């Protein structure tokens, strides 16, 4: 069980505070799930530096290759880390005929709008109601993300378990980024929790 202070910051020796209010995008009233990402960069420092930009976007946690966990945004604040949602009913083979018909016209914007009219878990967790965890990891020349390190997976497993227990998040509501929106399928593909 994690201790979370009134600012939404985790108080635990394994979590280093590196809050960047510039990436916070308004109050998050409810947490429905967790989305696991890879940064696209090779060091935590490059992400932490970019978060200083007033228009920067990021996620709530950042895990360095050697396993150090940074908390980069308050858990009571949204961050824009998800992008447009894919239709969850497609993945779970439960789309209605009306949804199937609508999905025949390719439009990620319209698809996202339809999804956002639902409540999680009928849709995937979104910016409004999810915690984002970034794993430091670059995309290689062939477009594939590097493998997540064992140290990162150890930290990720601990963090996901603690957040799930503390905030009451079901294990079925933890996703890799490409599961919930249109992203490079190799992103976080080697993440394990």
């Amino acid at each position, binding site marked *: 069980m994690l201790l979370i202070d009134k600012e939404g910051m985790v108080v635990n020796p394994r979590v280093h505070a590196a809050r960047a209010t510039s990436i916070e*995008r308004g109050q998050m009233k409810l947490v429905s799930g967790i989305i696991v*990402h890879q*940064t*696209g*960069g090779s060091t935590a420092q490059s*992400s932490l530096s*970019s978060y200083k*930009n007033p*228009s*920067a*976007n*990021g996620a709530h946690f950042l895990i360095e290759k050697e396993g150090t966990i940074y908390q980069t945004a308050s858990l009571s604040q949204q961050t*824009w*880390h*998800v*992008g*447009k949602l894919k239709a969850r009913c497609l993945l779970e083979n439960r789309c209605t005929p009306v949804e199937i018909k609508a999905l025949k016209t*390719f*439009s*990620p*914007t319209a698809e*996202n709008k339809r999804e956002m009219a639902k409540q999680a878990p009928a849709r995937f967790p979104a*910016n409004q109601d999810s915690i984002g965890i970034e794993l430091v990891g670059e*995309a290689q020349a*062939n*477009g*594939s993300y590097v493998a997540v390190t064992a140290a990162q997976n150890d930290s990720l497993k601990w963090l996901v378990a603690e957040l799930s227990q503390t905030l009451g998040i079901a294990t079925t509501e933890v996703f890799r*980024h*490409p599961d919930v*929106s*249109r*992203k*490079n*399928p*190799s*992103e976080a593909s080697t993440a394990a929790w």
Partner: protein
Amino acid sequence: MVGRWWIAAALGLAASLAQANDGCSAGSEFEPRLCPSGLPAIKQVIIQQNGMKSAQETNPAVRCDDFKLSVRQVRQFLTQAGEVDKQDALHQLDWSPCYASGEVRFKDGRVGLWQISQLRQGSVRLGEGEPVYLYCPACRARPFKQP
């Protein structure tokens, strides 16, 4: 004291005006902040790959044959696209498995490698550094899919 306050206020106003006048759009939850790319004028575009499917796409049903750009369309993309932050390119914008790629020669003598995806995202790599990440919401040529 009052004089110092006015100087501070004037400096703050100048800073905010500079930010407003940097040529960048504000951005939103699903549209990234776009800034002028600063790429030099184009001399020549060479297409090396067209209608390609990313090796990262594991779904065999996905086809990219319909994503074939002309030299004119590539030139338009590189001219009209704005620069986006790497984080926004990777996290905010939609990824497409379909892409075209090639070389671009600029009038200032520099040579770059470009890549453009079907969802109007692209990049230009000049030398060994990070590529310039691009997004072109204004590009509406037929091969592109509208988001």
